[in-house]
């Protein structure tokens, strides 16, 4: 099972890259090596932080959510840029996340930078606090982040959190 997902993904990527040219003489060894590397790297990766498994059935839903949000993010930035005076009101948000420590939280930290008006700047391994930079402090960013958190919980099959975040 540990090898299956990397194997399938590697095969898919190779198939896409070669555009179905049936280059399996070269492809099979390459796919095997990349699968082995993927598993090795995952072993090294899960040293301190727990690894969360992806729920592949939740991926389409998350993809749609992400597409919609990145459209919003792009339009939002464009609107602010094209005003005669750039319409930004940047500030810092100390955000308490309910996502447990591990892969899912790292995923949150990285992807939050592509969502409207947020950018992760500081990541603490010990507390639940993230430091986000927001483009406009007047917008209720925390609400959007909650929504993103719920989607990520669904994506990673995490139990729904009960703790309410409290932005500073």
């Amino acid at each position, binding site marked *: 099972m540990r090898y299956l997902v990397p194997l399938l993904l590697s095969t898919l990527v190779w198939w896409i890259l070669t555009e179905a040219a049936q280059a399996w003489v070269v492809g099979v060894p390459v796919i095997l090596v990349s699968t082995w590397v993927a598993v090795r790297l995952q072993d090294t990766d899960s040293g301190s932080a727990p690894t969360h498994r992806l729920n592949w059935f939740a991926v389409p839903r998350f993809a749609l959510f992400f597409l919609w949000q990145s459209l919003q993010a792009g339009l939002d930035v*464009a609107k602010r*840029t094209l005003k005669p005076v750039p319409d*930004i009101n*940047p500030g*810092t948000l100390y955000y308490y996340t309910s996502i447990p420590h591990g892969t899912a939280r790292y995923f949150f930290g990285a992807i939050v*930078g*592509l969502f409207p008006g947020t950018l992760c700047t*500081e990541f603490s391994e010990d507390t639940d606090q993230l*430091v986000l930079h927001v483009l406009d402090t007047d917008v209720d960013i925390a609400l959007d982040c909650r929504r993103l958190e719920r989607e990520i919980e669904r994506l990673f099959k995490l139990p729904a959190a009960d703790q309410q975040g409290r932005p500073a």
Partner: protein
Amino acid sequence: MIYVQILLVSLGCLFFIVGTLGLLRFDDAYSRIHAITKADNLGLGLLVLGILPSALSVPQGLKLILIWVLVLAASATASYLIAHYIKQHQLSKLPHGARPDTTADGQDAEPDPTNERGPQ
């Protein structure tokens, strides 16, 4: 169909220009990262969407989408890394040009409760 494609590709290019414009107009480093990541992400997405109907085969179309996904992953990580670096080294203010308003200047005013553990 071709007109829709032209529209999408032009819109995509427009977003790239807007992202660059944001990079030039905003005057603190964080906001610049905001502008460039989000606008370019959408711009590239629109470009890919516009070219997609011209793909000759299914894998070719998938390849275009794969390019977009890889760029997304890279830009999300890169934006975090740059922002994190600026945060750690307190480089948030650029030397020239004052910020338009100082009301929300939280970075330096508030004490940072997290311990500053850096790669030092």
